[in-house]
């Protein structure tokens, strides 16, 4: 976890390699077997030209970064807004970066407002958005 939350602080990045095996595992774990994710012959005939990772798998990596930084303050009291901009495909390496943009006080509680971006190895933004973590007094 981050020991000191300050404006401008960057969060420890998360790097993940996407494989079809991981996508299939995610489909089994989530129950989302949409053929665009798991059926290579179906996906090849779509505008995507091949299978793509579940958007929620990409978001899970964002949540991992936030959990590493904020622990239970993220799991209870966290907020997220994300836009899926590009698809992640088998073979892609995703890097998720985040930054604390501001610390805000509301009704005696502190909140860390962060932004994040998940990019592939070509530098394309796959997911981007904002997160908020409620800070316990230990982290303020």
């Amino acid at each position, binding site marked *: 976890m981050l020991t000191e939350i300050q404006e401008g602080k960057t969060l420890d990045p998360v790097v993940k390699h996407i494989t079809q095996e991981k996508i299939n595992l995610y489909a089994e*774990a989530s129950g989302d077997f949409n053929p665009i994710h798991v059926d290579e012959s179906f996906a090849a005939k779509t505008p995507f030209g091949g299978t793509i990772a579940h958007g*929620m798998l990409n978001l899970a990596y964002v949540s991992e970064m936030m959990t590493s930084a904020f622990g239970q303050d993220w*799991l209870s009291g966290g907020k*997220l807004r*994300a836009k*899926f901009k590009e698809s992640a495909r088998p073979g892609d390496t995703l890097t998720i970066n985040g930054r604390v943009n501001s610390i805000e006080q509301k009704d005696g509680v502190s909140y860390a407002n962060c932004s994040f971006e998940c990019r592939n190895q070509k530098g394309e933004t796959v997911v981007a958005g904002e997160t908020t973590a409620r800070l316990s007094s230990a982290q303020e």
Partner: protein
Amino acid sequence: MQGKSVDYEELVPGYEFPLSTYELSAPLVSKYLRAVDGTGDGFVPPLAITACAIAAMTGSLSLAPDTVAIHASQELEFLKLVPIGTVIECHITVAQKITRGKMSVLILELESFDQDRERVQWGKATVALPT
């Protein structure tokens, strides 16, 4: 997962998907953690709850063959820690349905409650589909 299958045309603002109830058991959470390369800390990863909710919704939605639904955006709010073993009830409602040219956009509201009827998660998903 439970409930009947619904056709896309039946989805109008205010439509409530059949309730889905699932237990966030240790094997289910460990399967999820393996899939996302995650490590456990005794609590259910909040995105695992969302994933189950979305899967329950898509599982009860009947789309034309070859239709590809695109998850365009997601909002989430995690309201309480969820211990492993919690039984979750998920409510999904169609908030908006917008048709723009050859695309249709569905905005869905998701709410998950635990067995004590406490709200554990709120969310909004935007899904785009070809019409």
